[in-house]
């Protein structure tokens, strides 16, 4: 392991189950300090990829290294400084929360048992630590999963849907915790379906679909590439729509509840505002709107067989363009 080795580096990762290609030549680059979002629809291959990263399943082809070490070759040593869980964290239901942590701390060695009280405090499970895990709610088990991960003093935290099953307050607290861990220098690889959560927390993302990475890079770049949108409120939205339609470079103008939405390059927006002024239409507000992660996610991952086939085909073509540019 060298200091320069990235927390996660996957190259050409493939996992095939007989005829099913679960993971198809996935490359990942998680850098030190990243809060890295790993997104994809159900069955896209996210969890299989994370299992390979943690050495739980053997890749059919390709390699994955954690801080420069391949879990398939280095075994437990490759997980040095790495913690987390895939799918739901699992514990021994007949043991108490504290006993579970004691067991895991014993398997970690390295003085992990001295941190049990501290991590229980962090996830606010101290009052229930003496109760059997079999009686824990889903949210409490998620929190115990985080506590078990923190026992290892990780430099890389791999979390698979950590907010699943949590109530809104629990989700907010989970986000706060992840933010705090990131500020303490822990690199976080976060697999999530909660797109607003990823948008809020992550600086870099990989989006997988049907086992392949369809985008990997900075979230900000993705949103910029998604096209700059604008929203216009005017004294006469109907006339503004007609003017926008006639104006070169103004794409997809649509009149909605909150005014006129369209896409355009910045120079074209200036021309539109002048045209509106000449026509006597007053501009109440003109605000740029970046594409949301949700918009981009669906553009990148939905195929063209839905109800709005044509729109989705167009979206897919646009997404393909984004990937090529990325």
């Amino acid at each position, binding site marked *: 392991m060298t200091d320069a080795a990235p927390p996660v580096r996957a190259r050409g990762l493939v996992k095939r189950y007989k005829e099913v290609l679960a993971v198809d030549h996935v490359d990942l680059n998680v850098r030190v300090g990243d809060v890295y979002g790993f997104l994809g629809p159900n069955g896209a291959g996210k969890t299989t990829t994370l299992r390979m990263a943690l050495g739980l399943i053997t890749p059919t082809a390709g390699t994955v290294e954690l801080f420069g070490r391949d879990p398939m070759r280095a075994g437990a040593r490759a997980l040095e400084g790495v913690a987390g869980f895939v799918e739901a964290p699992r514990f021994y239901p007949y043991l108490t929360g504290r006993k579970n942590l004691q067991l895991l701390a014993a398997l970690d060695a390295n003085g992990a048992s001295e941190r049990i009280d501290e991590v229980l*405090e962090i996830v606010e499970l101290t009052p229930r630590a003496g109760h059997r895990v079999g009686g824990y709610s889903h949210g409490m088990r998620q929190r115990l999963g985080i506590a078990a991960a923190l026992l290892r003093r990780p430099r890389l935290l791999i979390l698979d849907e950590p907010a699943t099953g949590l109530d809104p307050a629990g989700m907010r607290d989970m986000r706060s915790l992840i933010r705090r861990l990131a500020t303490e220098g822990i690199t976080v690889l976060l697999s999530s379906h909660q797109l607003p959560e990823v948008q809020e927390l992550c600086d870099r993302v990989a989006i997988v679909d049907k086992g392949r990475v369809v985008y990997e890079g900075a979230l900000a770049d993705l949103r910029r590439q998604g096209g700059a949108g604008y929203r216009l409120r005017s004294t006469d939205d109907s006339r503004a729509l007609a003017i926008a339609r006639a104006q070169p470079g103004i794409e997809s103008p649509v009149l909605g509840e909150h005014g006129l939405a369209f896409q355009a390059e910045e120079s074209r927006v200036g021309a539109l505002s002048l045209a509106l002024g000449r026509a006597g239409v007053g501009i109440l507000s003109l605000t740029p709107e970046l594409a949301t992660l949700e918009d981009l996610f669906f553009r990148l991952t939905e195929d063209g067989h839905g109800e709005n086939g044509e729109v989705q085909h167009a979206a897919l073509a646009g997404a393909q363009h984004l990937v090529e540019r990325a």
Partner: protein
Amino acid sequence: MSAAGAAPAAPLLAGPFKRAATATAYRWELRKLVSQKRTYLGFGLAVALPLIFVIVQSLRHSHDHGENIFASQITHSGLATPVLMLLFLSVFMLPLIASLVAGDIVAAEDGNGTLKTILTRSVDRGQVFASKALAAATYATVAVFLSATVATVAGVAAWGFNSVTTYSGTVVSPSEGLLLIFAANACYLIPLFAVASIGVLLSTVTRNSAAAVVGAVGVTILLFIVAQIPGLEGIRPYLLTEQYEAWHGLLRTPTDWAPIWHSLWVCALYAGPALLTGYLVFLRRDVAGG
């Protein structure tokens, strides 16, 4: 989990890597066994059967002594009881008790998803497998000696701590008899460890507790059937089930070590490949459940 408001924790930075000891993993395997109700099912059988035997025999007025020398001494010495119990339980019940845990020890973790939990800590797969195999062997050992202890205490309480006549017709003192009885139980552990090894193998390969338990017991039954097939007398000495009686050699004067040494290497031929195969499967398997 209000992390934002929580007191600042110590810096969460990794220290130098230190692998957990296999002894630690083994100790925790035992603690897990102790914490599970199903563990006590086997122990319950190991305790209940000798008690039932002694109670029933105490209530009977006449005893059919049969051909066994220890059966003929049942009311003369309490030390005959643990020998008879070993004779009865060694055929089916103790292999079943050993299989209950051996067949469950890997498969249950696979089914519960806890295998992935422990395999993402600082412990290698080989260590986890070794600790589980050792825990299964420990459970079998405890069950055998628990049964022997209960049978001895109950037998002595019912019929006294008297001298006993061994298979060779030699009368041995109560203290020597007691020593021989526990040595005989220790000797019986040789084939029982082989049964447990097969249980661990099946538990690893099938990932199904019930299938592994039934499979391990099924192997024993199958070998008993094979032993009865005319024309297969030549392989009989090499069948695992034939080794269940090797301990008889200890209850002779002088001690007949031949069946015990034979049992040792024959059982090694069953246990060795079973454990090696289980180990290799465990090292390479995908942990995809849970």
